[in-house]
């Protein structure tokens, strides 16, 4: 399925260099952290905190309805993982960036109204609709910084 991912990663990585040390986060998965004002607006979210970890930064945001979003960005400013939980769904076309197309392909299979799962070399994604609320997480294996385990994504 998602065989075109390496190419996209390369492309976004190149763009990433241009905005390298840009400050606060909240770009889509596989994209460079961009203008927080722009992205907060797109996600109807407010940035709460940026927490540095060993080899990446964790950006916590809260959506207007109370849902929380967490973005994991490399020191080079690339978002390699996103997680979210709460009552409302975030705008996945913003949060997943170019990987939204992969989500759409999986969603259109309609295997389940409640679960969408992708587990490929290019993208790992999981969305669950609870009786009330959503849980979601996604990461790009190729972008995880050295020394970081997928288990660190929470």
């Amino acid at each position: 399925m998602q065989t075109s991912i390496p190419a996209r990663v390369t492309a976004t990585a190149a763009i990433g260099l241009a905005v390298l040390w840009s400050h606060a986060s909240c770009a889509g998965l596989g994209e460079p952290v961009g203008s927080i004002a722009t992205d907060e607006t797109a996600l109807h979210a407010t940035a709460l905190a940026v927490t540095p970890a060993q080899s990446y930064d964790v950006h916590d945001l809260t959506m207007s309805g109370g849902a929380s979003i967490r973005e994991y960005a490399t020191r080079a400013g690339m978002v390699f993982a996103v997680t979210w939980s709460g009552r409302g769904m975030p705008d996945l076309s913003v949060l997943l960036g170019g990987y939204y197309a992969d989500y759409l392909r999986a969603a259109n299979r309609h295997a389940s109204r409640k679960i969408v799962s992708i587990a490929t070399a290019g993208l790992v994604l999981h969305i669950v609709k609870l009786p009330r609320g959503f849980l979601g997480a996604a990461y790009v294996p190729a972008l995880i910084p050295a020394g970081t385990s997928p288990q660190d994504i929470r």
Partner: protein
Amino acid sequence: MSLAAWRAVSVIGRASVGFAMLLVAACGGGSGSTGAVTLVSIAAAPKSISLNVGATQVLSVTGTYSNGAMASVTTGLGFSSSATGVATVDASGVVAGVAPGTAQIDVTDGMGGFSAAPVTVAVLASSAANSLPVVVDQGPAVLVASGQTATNTLFASATICTPGSASACQTIDHLQIDTGSTGIQILSAVLTGAATTTPASVNGAPLRECVQFADGYTWGSVVIADVQLGGRTIASLPIHLIGDAAAGTAPSSCSTGAGPAENTVAAFGANGLIGVGNFLQDCGAYCATPPAPSAAYYACPSSGCLPTTLAVTQQVQNPVAMLAADNNGIVIGLPSVGAPGAASVSGTLYFGVGTQADNAPSSAAFLTVDPATGTLITNFGGAALTGSVIDSGSNAYFFNDSSIAVCAINSSFFCPVDGSGAPTNLALTATLQGINGVTAAAPFTIGNANSLFGAGANLTAFPTLGGPNGSVGGSITGFDWGLPFFFSRSVYILFEAHTAAATAGPAIGFD
């Protein structure tokens, strides 16, 4: 079968179990009066009756007199049934159900020669008025025609009526029974006009709703209808009408980044959905309290749609909780299904938990669920999976186990193989745990989905179907106990704010 594998749906050929109709016309005009007060007409009540086989109901007769007074008439009456094989009536007006079908009861006043408008009696095929037949099958005709087949999807029919009318009704088949959500949703396309629903409004503007799922969203008006489920009727029930022309295009705050629209039968996978989960409303306090959530309820004046808060009483309601009785929960009873699967499976959904002999919990353990999310805990593979659900609206056991091979051609399902690479069955077990600490073991078997789907083109019910509930790194995951869990047992859904079996809901029990 096409692995488009829709979430299930099923149907029930419930003939015209509908709503018995009949207006009691206030019969023939006055037969003159001479000053003395005389009887001018009689009327029988109720005007229509839904009965189970073996059940009885007494008719009452009211006379209208020449001075306008009305009074009960108890003597001199004659009762007769048009179909004594369906329903009988005795000299006292006691109607008894004999066999499924429809009969007409005529009532006459032997002295005055008056006749009441006839009473229509519908004798139900189901065993009790608090029950609804359910079925697992290939789904609605439109879905099948689109080349898809429902898989492990539980369906029922409901009859939608114009508010206040017992005759302007339409029975809709293949509404998915979903214990993982709340409220009735119906595709506008299948409501062909017999019933005229009433648009709901908020602050004087049309009320519309966006419902998001993991794999897409629906959009449409909130409307009021009378709804018959099994032998019971709910008057003035708010329901979500999906994809109606009046609602137009979904606002971008509903549709943008929310996945595919599911506003057609083919995309939705059913003619609609009956959500009978633990909650009383589809949204609850979250939608009643500012700020108005995006992608939920909308007020839509001509200037455009904006998210709105909405009082819980105006929200789309759990239909069973709105019944006059047997309204504290449901029981779903399905038979065991042999391997590899069955073409169809029939069962029964009972209204109420512990309110009747037919919905009394036996040895079931009751596990409370998180009152905010509806989830409980599954202990499996050494982990406590806190985001777990018992969900008839999921078509497989969905859980995370990296040791089980995922199917190469459909990564939604598991395809376990043995050491030689041959398809095999895995016998597994997990322990469910309520928020109240109550635990119950749940053994289950996972088969090879390729083999199951290849076992017969007509199969729609698969008791061993499983699939990955993909874990992403260290993020929270759950165990989704989908429809296979419901086979060969009774599952009790106890609603929030109700108590049964010494347990305060929201809770789930099973045996």
